[in-house]
């Protein structure tokens, strides 16, 4: 079997802006419940509005749902050479320029920041810049979040 390693030529690549992701109130509640996040601002619109938000607030790692969709453009591309059975998640970072709330329509621009290889171990770092979708489908609006993710890919002989 061929020893596939991630193609370092993908480093620096930027993908076109994604279709909008609609942040649903029930999706926030479902995700919050799945990580045991019982703070009422995730579940109760009255509490969320009392804190100054227009609707229920997403947990701090919710943006991974949006980021993973965008990242699949790269990691699921056979040309990228990423064997998912050999992938280990190494690092994840979220920066919230403002909280994500139910009702948001969000678009993402995926960047492949680096693809490095040392011996038979590869490290791939992606960055998702998440923006409010423009109502008219035009250029993305307010910058909402940045999600950086690093994956380690083990080669065949490691």
């Amino acid at each position: 079997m061929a020893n596939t390693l991630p193609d370092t030529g993908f480093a620096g690549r930027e993908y076109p802006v994604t279709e909008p992701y609609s942040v649903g109130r029930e999706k926030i509640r479902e995700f919050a419940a799945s990580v045991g996040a019982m703070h009422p601002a995730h579940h109760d619109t009255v509490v969320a509005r009392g804190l100054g938000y227009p609707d229920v607030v997403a947990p701090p790692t919710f943006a991974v749902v949006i980021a993973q969709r965008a990242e699949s453009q790269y990691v699921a591309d056979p040309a990228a050479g990423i064997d998912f059975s050999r992938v280990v998640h190494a690092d994840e970072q979220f920066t919230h320029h403002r909280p994500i709330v139910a009702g948001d329509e969000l678009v993402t621009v995926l960047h492949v920041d680096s693809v490095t290889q040392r011996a038979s171990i590869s490290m791939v770092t992606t960055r998702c810049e998440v923006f409010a979708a423009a109502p008219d489908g035009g250029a993305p609006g307010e910058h909402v979040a940045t999600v950086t993710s690093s994956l380690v890919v083990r080669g065949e002989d490691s």
Partner: protein
Amino acid sequence: MTTQRPELAALSVGDVVATRTIELDRATLVRYAGASGDFNPIHWDEGFAVEVGLPGVIAHGMCTMGSVVGVVTDWVGDPGAVVRYGTRFTKPVPVPARGAAVVDVVATIGALDPEAGTARVDLTVSHEDVKVLGRAQAVVRLA
């Protein structure tokens, strides 16, 4: 429901602000897979996990990361106050077919930035006394 956040001026680096014990069982992982859309079989298929060299089913790193930060949002009283949150995944958390993996969380003030009005909360996250997250840090806006 109070909207009172902790006072930045009353905090010192090294203060332990919260602790919590979290249990992750197979149902947690199935629920997280569905909610997040991460259906990698290493998180629910024992045979597959063993075939790829793991001791068995392991928790999604993102499930652990997402589960432990509740200690911060509950302490600060406002989930929208978390402006940054990141971690390295240093060790997997094996989740048995019956029972649960127990994860211990200690939240300590790691840094204070009065100009920005933020505090950095460092999370020590361990399973059976082994740290499973590295440099798990959340920055919260308090003012």
